Structure formats: C-alpha cells, structure tokens
C-alpha cells in the first residue's frame, strides 16, 4: 500500500510539473507516467478518471501547498508588508528555479480546462478561494483591517498569478519586483 501511494504521489508530482509547463490540453497521461517512471498500466489503476482525475488531484495539492506556504511565511515575518514581500519572493524563486518553464499548474489547468470539465473548475475555484482566504487571514493577523485585508488579498493573488504569466513570456522576473513595489499602496488604498 505504501508503494502504491508512493507511485500515485510521484505521478501527481510529474503531472504538476507538466501541467504547469504546458497547460491541460497539451499533456497526455502517457507523458505523465513516463516522467514519473511508473508503468503505463498504472494510469487507470491510480486515476480511474484519467487526466481529469489526475488534474483534480494536482489542483488539490497545489492549493494545499499554496496555503501552507502562506501560513509558513506568516510565521516567519512581522508586519503585513514583509509578509507579502516574502510571498512574492518565494513565487519568484520557484519560477526562476525552473528557468521560467513552470508557472502555476492551477493556471495551466484552468486556462482552458474550465470549458471541458466542471468538477475540475470547481476544484480550482475552491483552491483559489482558500489561497485568497489564507492571505487575507495572514494580513488580518498582522493588524490589517479585515475588509482591507480581503480586498488586498484578492488583488494580491491575481497579481501573483499575472506576474507568473507575464514573467514566463517576457523571460524576466521584473513583474514580481514591480508587484512588490505596489504592496504598500495595496495595503493602504482601502483606508483613504
């Protein structure tokens, strides 16, 4: 049983990488098992629903990790600005490590799978909203008003996703530092 779940985890891992590189329509299950080094016969054993099934698990994993990252960053930083700055930093580093190949798997899946699979869309919507909630909570815990925190968190998540997207095409991490530049404004804009 341990080995089984291990194979599945490896396949989800490989799926995440491929989906974040190329999007949902551009990845086949064969590529996923090959990348994971799993036998081809194991595809429908581990994922009876095929690619949709795999992508749903990837979305759940990515969403969970995003929330974990937010919580971890919240414990490491003081003050709302430092909190957002470190988050931006982590996302930037991740993209740089993959040489601009791997953005966000969730975006890669959603950008054209929302028309294909309703369960997948719903799973991604959940993941995004729990990510936004986590950021909002982090901000509130650092003394930002709840209303301001919610709006700032929603804009921040859109900003991070957009920065990943634009960074990949321009092959430069400039969008992240530009986003970092507006963080103070983002936190005060609600007060005026």
């Amino acid at each position, binding site marked *: 049983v341990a080995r089984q779940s291990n194979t599945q985890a490896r396949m989800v891992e490989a799926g995440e990488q491929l989906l974040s590189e*190329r999007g949902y329509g551009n990845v086949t299950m064969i590529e996923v098992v090959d990348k994971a080094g799993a036998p081809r016969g194991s595809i429908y054993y581990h994922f009876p629903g095929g690619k949709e099934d795999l992508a749903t698990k990837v979305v759940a994993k990515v969403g969970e990790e995003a929330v974990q990252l937010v919580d971890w960053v919240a414990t490491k930083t003081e003050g709302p600005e430092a909190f957002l700055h470190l988050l931006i930093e982590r996302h930037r580093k991740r993209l740089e490590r993959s040489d601009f190949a791997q953005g966000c798997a969730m975006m890669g899946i959603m950008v054209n799978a929302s028309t*294909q699979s309703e369960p997948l869309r719903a799973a991604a919507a959940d993941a995004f909203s729990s990510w936004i909630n986590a950021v909002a909570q982090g901000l509130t815990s650092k003394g930002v008003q709840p209303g301001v925190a919610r709006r700032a968190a929603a*804009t921040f*998540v*859109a900003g991070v996703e*957009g920065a990943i997207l634009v960074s990949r*095409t321009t092959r430069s991490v400039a969008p992240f530092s530009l*986003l970092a530049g507006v963080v103070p404004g*983002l936190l005060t804009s609600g007060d005026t």
Partner: protein
Amino acid sequence: VQRSRSRDEYTNTAVQPSGQSRRIPTPRRRFFILSMVGVNRTRTLLLMRWSSRLSPRMSAAPTPQQQGIVTDMAARRTDTRDRMIRSAVRLFQRHGYVGTTMLQVVEDSGASRGSIYFHFRGGKEELAREVLDRSRRDVVKLAHRCAERATDPSETVLRLADVLADGMRNSGFVEGCAAATMALEMTPACEVLRAACDGYFVEWQRALSLHFLDAGMPRTRAQVLASVAVSTLEGALILARTSLSTTPLDVAGTELSALVSASLPLGRDRSPKGSEAA
C-alpha cells in the same frame, strides 16, 4: 465546342483570341499528372512549383476583365482570412492553442476546408501569430478608448476592468485572454509564439503608461503601475474564469484604480471615485 466550353470552368482552359483553346493544367491536374509519372510527393511539389513558372498564364499580362476578377478574388480572399482570424481569436480564448483545431476554425468561420493552407501557409502557428497580432491591436485600442472616456487614469483602469468583466460575463465565463492561453501552453516550447505574447503584454502596458504619463505621473511610477495593472488584470481574468464570477476583476479594478489615483500628482482632480471605491 460545347464540351470544351463546359470544361472551361473546371479545367482552366485558356480561350485564345483565334478561337482555339489551349489547356493549361490546373495545379490539381498538374499534381495528378506528375504523381502518375511516379515521383514522390515532395518531388511532385517541387516540380509543380517549377512547372508553374513555365505556365503561360503566369507570364501573360492579365486582360482588364481578368484584372477585375483578380481584385475581386483578392478582396474575397482577405475577407475570408479575416473571418478565419476572428473565429480563431474566439476559439483560442475558449480552448487555447492546443485545444483548437484548424478544422474548427474553418467550420466556425464558414470557410472551405481547402482554404486553411491557402490562407495560412504556415499552418496553425501562422494563424496563432495573426490572432496575437489582432488581439494586441484590439487591447491597445481598448485601452485608448477607455482613456478617452475617462476623466483621469484611475477611471481608465476602472473602465478597463469593467469592459473585461463584461466580456467575461457575456461569454458565460469561457472567453479569457487569447495571449494568456497561448502563453501558458506554448511558452517554453515555441519561441515565435512566446515573442508574440511578449509583444501583446508590452504593447498593452505601453498604452496604459502613456495615459498615466499624460496625467502627470512620474515616468518610473507610470511604468510600474501600468505593468502591475496589466499582469493583475490578466491574473484576475483567470480567477474570474475559474470562479465563474466577475468579482476578481471588480476587486482588482477598484484596487488598481486606487493605486493609480494615489500616484497622481496633487492638484489634479484626485477623483472622488478613488475614495468611493475604497
């Protein structure tokens, strides 16, 4: 005589002034003939290119009547091409680059199947470049239009987000940004499309930053805000599509607009909208 005339339309028979007719093989017929001679496909195509140079029609100057037909055909040709690009923009927005087939584009635009590689020799990639080109011009136009109707740049951003939200809502949350779909699918794989997507984002940013500059914002700040606005709106489009709601675009719009308004020099109309939004 009757037979040769009826064949006229199909076999491209050139009617000579003397009344005699000489048949010029159509490309299709030429292909057939050459393939019967027993050369392989590549060689046949090469030979076709070569033999078409020898074709008298190519060298003969067209009569005024023929000229008329030619320009008429050229007009129809660009029209079909245009329709195909418009269909492709919509299809790419929905299904992405990989999820859209050339056949779907043909069916959606009502063009004939044979016209695909006639209009787009470079195949799907050429079509995609045209799509990005069209989307880029459209988004720049949109930015200028929003700026024209707004009293200051913070309102421009608000209007821009509104228009994007309307587009999302009207399409039932399936038509996002064509450049984003292609960027996410093709970015490391295809350099040509990466560069075209890059152009899309850069031009959009430039259009916005021009309007920020016009309102007296410092240059570096204008560039920062323009690129943050573009990337955040792109992110919000994806969030909107996922959550089937325009809230991400509405929130991003008001927040970005407040950021812009806070960076405008004092003394200008500091938009009551900025504080209203907050």
